[in-house]
């Protein structure tokens, strides 16, 4: 297979994958290094990357972090199972798409405006993007390819992502489960010993006490949250 898209760094101003002739895979297929392949082939290559490269990480985005429609809870559960089967896998969320000021906490999160900071600081060599809206996934994947040597995998509910080394489209919970099974198979082939273990808690996050929280506590962001049903906010700045 001739690889069109490979791990970076691609350089200062990377050429976009679509401009290099990479097209999204049709239904039932996947992308691997910019080529249209069978889904299983892409999953196997991705599995080997997650098993053999340093600091494998899953980056869940808003579409799997929030239980906002059917199948999301099942996907999230399947992702936890997947992470549990990848040795030393971490989960770092992309909770929204804002840049983080004054400085991102790269141990706690990633965002599409400077995803390379999280990748580089954590020395991540293989990662999975899942549940990230396509526009932001494309931005992130290209920036990662521009400035890092990370092998990227995109698990997409829609049409996939040309920039990733491996891209699976039309993602459902059962696809994630199938990917987990492939991870286990490849792990056994490689002779890696691992007991099913949940990924570690995010080290930067403190336990929160939300019992006294109210929208007024969010200051300038109060308009961005929904009040609870029946709640009447009386506090003002």
């Amino acid at each position, binding site marked *: 297979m001739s690889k069109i898209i490979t791990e970076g760094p691609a350089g200062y101003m990377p050429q976009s994958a679509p401009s290099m002739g990479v097209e999204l895979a049709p239904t039932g297929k996947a992308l691997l290094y910019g080529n249209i392949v069978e889904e299983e082939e892409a999953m196997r290559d991705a599995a080997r990357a997650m098993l053999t490269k340093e600091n494998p990480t899953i980056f869940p985005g808003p579409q799997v972090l929030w239980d906002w429609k059917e199948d999301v809870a099942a996907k999230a559960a399947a992702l936890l199972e997947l992470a549990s089967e990848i040795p030393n896998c971490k989960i770092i969320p992309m909770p929204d798409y804002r840049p983080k000021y004054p400085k991102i906490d790269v141990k706690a999160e990633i965002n599409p405006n400077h995803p390379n900071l999280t990748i580089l600081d954590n020395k991540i060599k293989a990662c999975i993007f899942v549940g990230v809206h396509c526009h932001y996934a494309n931005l992130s994947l290209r*920036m990662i390819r521009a400035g890092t040597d990370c092998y990227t995998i995109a698990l997409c509910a829609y049409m996939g992502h040309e920039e990733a080394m491996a891209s699976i489209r039309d993602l459902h919970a059962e696809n994630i489960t199938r990917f987990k099974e492939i991870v286990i198979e490849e792990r056994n082939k490689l002779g890696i010993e691992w007991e099913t273990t949940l990924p570690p808690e995010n080290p930067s996050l403190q336990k929160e006490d939300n019992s006294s929280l109210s929208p007024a506590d969010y200051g300038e962001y109060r308009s961005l949250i929904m009040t609870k049903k029946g709640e009447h906010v009386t506090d003002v700045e």
Partner: protein
Amino acid sequence: MSAIERPQPNKTKTFVDMDYLLHEAPREQHFITGAQAMAEAVKRANVDMAIAYPITPQSEVMHLVGDIYAQGHLKEYYRAEEELGTMSAIAGAARAGVRLFTATSGPGLLRGLEAIASWPGHRVPAVLGVLTRVVNAPLSIQPDNIEMAYLMHCGAVMLHAENQQDTFDMTLAAFAITEKVDVYIPVSVSTEGFFVTHAKGYVDMMSEDLAYKDFDSVAAPVPAMDNETPPARIQRDAPVQKSNFMSYLIHSVWQQEIWDSNRRAMKYIYQYLGGPIEVVNPDADVFVIASGCAAAQGREAQRYAEEENLNVGLIKVRAIRPFPIDEINAAVKNAKTLIVPEHNIIGWLSKEVKAAIPNGGIVVEGPRVYGGMTLPVELIMKEIYTALGLEYDLKL
């Protein structure tokens, strides 16, 4: 504010996908203007909202859209303050996840261009009709298509309709293309004011009891900003990008993503419209390449030439963005001369064609008319004769 009672025809419509609507639904022939054709497409597109500010010749279209709003085919319609207000309102409405239509002409496009240019970057899935005309000064309302040159650099998908039938089909297709997850940028449908909008032609249309299926606002590359879809009001546009905490690269790759989305639209132009170009007599040495109204005149010239036993082909260009570089190269690989008639002074199509092919010297830039003049077929015939080394007695 009192509610105005309106009919509710959408309640009795059958909602179908665009493939069925364009390719399979039975059609009947009608004899209607281009403005009517565009409005009839909007009627069948299950549009949620239309917003516009009037300008000739676009006003004919939006007047008719107002009529179909009164008939209950649109959920909402209003006249905005001016074009910048219109196009800004379109951007705002898109964030709420509704299907949108607007239209403008000439200086109206330029006035709205600040907002229109930001639409792709904000991932606004709107359909924009451009009923082309001159740009002032001197003041005129007559057909030209110079304003399309400005739109060509904004990132939107651009389709150019030859006639009333094209206007109908392209407008319908535009709603489907703009909403694809891997496109999700505005799609414009341009056609010449008056020559098409105010003239009648035959249009095969499906029943108005059929309509495009509902817009799925969450099947999108960016989150809808409403209060129902959690996380509520998730921010989707980066604030002002400053070097103290942003990578400059984010803006670069964001721009790339917009133009990649434009590129991805090509497969849907094939799916819904049969491809970005149409080729007549593909083995010819001399081709007329044209879009919009000029394609209709080019078609006549090709027919005249055929009657005179001259071997001439036609390449009609449907898609201006993405520009069909590969398709044009394939079509003209053996050609000796390409004649590009246009309705504007700058010749934006001939410039695109020259840039697209390796041997741009074979392009004849013209004939061109502008300022509202018609494009006589005889002007094209003269260029054909010249290309073939023949004398032509031009009489106008």
